């Protein structure tokens, strides 16, 4: 069986080139000796060194991480609560409207979300800073969490909760001792999704950021306007590395888990 035909190989190369060529060029140029982005002058890691001594970049990175951790954590709590209500409470009047309103931000243009939040903060006279970005990111990422968690809850066996109640749990205990541990993988992936969304958001952050709270995407965007620099290439390469390592680790963990489970079930049958 010859699977690799000339046509297949070409399609594959073209497809992958389209996806990854820009990133490969970015990574290669991050190791460029020259200050001019377009001229190759030999291999060097000096821009990584410069990056680490550039305080404004480090500050921006710290702000970004703070915002991402806080907003994704709040979004996970709120999104999970919303998912519970939507999946559990059956048909109450206005349910369709309610669920529609939760999912609307998924398709809402970011510019509009950002603008309306900006108007709200101005209207309420709130000083823009880290907290306003956190609030804004929570707003748009909680619906993603809610989608992920509710798809898990739909297949959740309600009798598990009833069993917990039957064995003496209060509603609260039943949730924390039984439901939450079982849906934890969905909640964690909801958190990760919210975290990444917050990490790379530029539009909403630029509407709601204040002078003291520049996030990394805003920092990159504004330095690009002053011209391309190899430092930015180095920074972007680092971000690609972090994301790649994260994704590979997460998939390895889940794959190992499912393999182990399969092996366990086989062992149980014999």
């Amino acid at each position: 069986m010859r699977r690799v035909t000339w046509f297949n190989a070409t399609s594959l190369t073209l497809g992958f080139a389209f996806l990854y060529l820009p990133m490969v060029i970015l990574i290669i140029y991050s190791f460029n000796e020259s200050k001019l982005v377009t001229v190759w002058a030999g291999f060097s890691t000096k821009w990584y060194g410069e990056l680490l001594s550039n305080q404004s970049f480090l500050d921006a990175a710290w702000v970004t991480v703070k915002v991402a951790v806080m907003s994704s954590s709040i979004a996970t709590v709120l999104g999970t609560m919303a998912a519970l209500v939507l999946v559990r409470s059956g048909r109450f009047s206005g349910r369709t409207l309610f669920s529609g309103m939760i999912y609307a931000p998924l398709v809402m243009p970011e510019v509009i979300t950002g603008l309306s939040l900006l108007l709200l903060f101005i209207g309420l006279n709130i000083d823009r800073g880290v907290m306003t970005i956190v609030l804004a990111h929570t707003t748009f990422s909680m619906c993603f969490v809610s989608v992920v968690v509710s798809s898990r809850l739909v297949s959740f066996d309600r009798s598990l909760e009833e069993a917990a109640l039957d064995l003496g749990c209060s509603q609260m205990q039943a949730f924390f001792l039984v439901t939450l541990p079982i849906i934890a993988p969905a909640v964690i992936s909801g958190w990760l999704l919210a975290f990444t969304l917050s990490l790379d958001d530029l539009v909403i952050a630029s509407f709601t950021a204040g002078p003291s709270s520049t996030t990394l995407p805003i920092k990159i965007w504004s330095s690009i306007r002053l011209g391309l620099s190899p430092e930015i290439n180095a920074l972007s390469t680092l971000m690609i590395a972090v994301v790649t390592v994260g994704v590979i680790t997460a998939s390895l963990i889940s794959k190992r888990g499912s393999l182990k489970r399969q092996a366990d079930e086989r062992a149980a049958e014999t």
Partner: protein
Amino acid sequence: MSQTVFEPWNDPQAKPLIQFKNVTKRFGDFTAIDNQTFDIYEREFFALLGPSGCGKTTMMRMLAGFEKVTEGKILLAGQDMAPIPPNKRAVNMMFQSYALFPHLSVWENIAFGLKRDKKPKDEITDRVAQMLKLTRLEKFAQRKPHQISGGQRQRVALARSLAKAPKLLLLDEPLGALDAKLRQDTQFELVDIQEKTGTTFVIVTHDQEEAMTVATRVAVMDDGKIMQADTPANIYERPNSVYVADFIGDVTIIEGRATKTGDGYDIAFAEGQPTLHAESSKTFQNGQSCHLAIRPEKVAITADKPDTRNALKGTILDIAYLGNLSTYHVRLETGQIVKAQTANTRRLSRRNFTWEDTVWLSWTDTAAVLLEG
């Protein structure tokens, strides 16, 4: 007969553990349970039997506290259950899906309810060990539910629901997920455990064989009502309605009109056919329409006309060979089908009857049950 028979429902002195008093349950316009009053006694193994949608699961969920009673009252040991939430009731339930907590080990699953009661640690350890022993699960204590077989999961579910020593244990189709062979063994095991622990069991099932095997009393339900609640033998031999007679086991129902003769009734059921005779303690008006229910195994099948009052001639239409038994479907001249069953005590080659044979069916005066119609 020195041993006392366990029949608290016939003892006017006996205090029931559970009392349903005019219980009605509605879901919107739909009436799931229709004004039911009945008692369940301590140490009983009470089976709720019926087709799906008859309300048997609703009955059980009201006992567990997962459904609220619309009208009427349920009393447990004389106390009204309505204000008591599920987690405060001395009632535990074994779920159809078993509902084992997948993230906890077998040991932790069984200990779950005890831990909620804040029992001292060594008491929990002792009780769990006792439960593991009762259900023969000692070897699997540290396994997770997905690491054990279906039969073992069923036993974990049972152990978990018995661990808190409830006054009442509810079992929702407990053997539904097991294969036929394992189910039979498990039925007897269930009865054994019920007797050992002395717990009152209420089981919901749609499998009549299962209900008959395990229960002290079977309640046959239809459309939100208990049609008859009695011992398995009485349900089978003395059904009180056509529905119960038809639902439990195999039966031929012959419709006719009753006329009082001697200590029973003559039943005329078709032109040109002899009248049938059945003894009955029920009273019927002369000419009142009635149903005669006759079990196939009580019908004898012979080649020559027998010398009894109940004798009908017909031709064999169908033979269902079940190995130990054969059921003959015999068509009378009127077109009506009567079923007769014989035990296959002889090998096949020695069998007397075959298709299209003309045969006589007969039964005794006490074999059939006369029902109002």
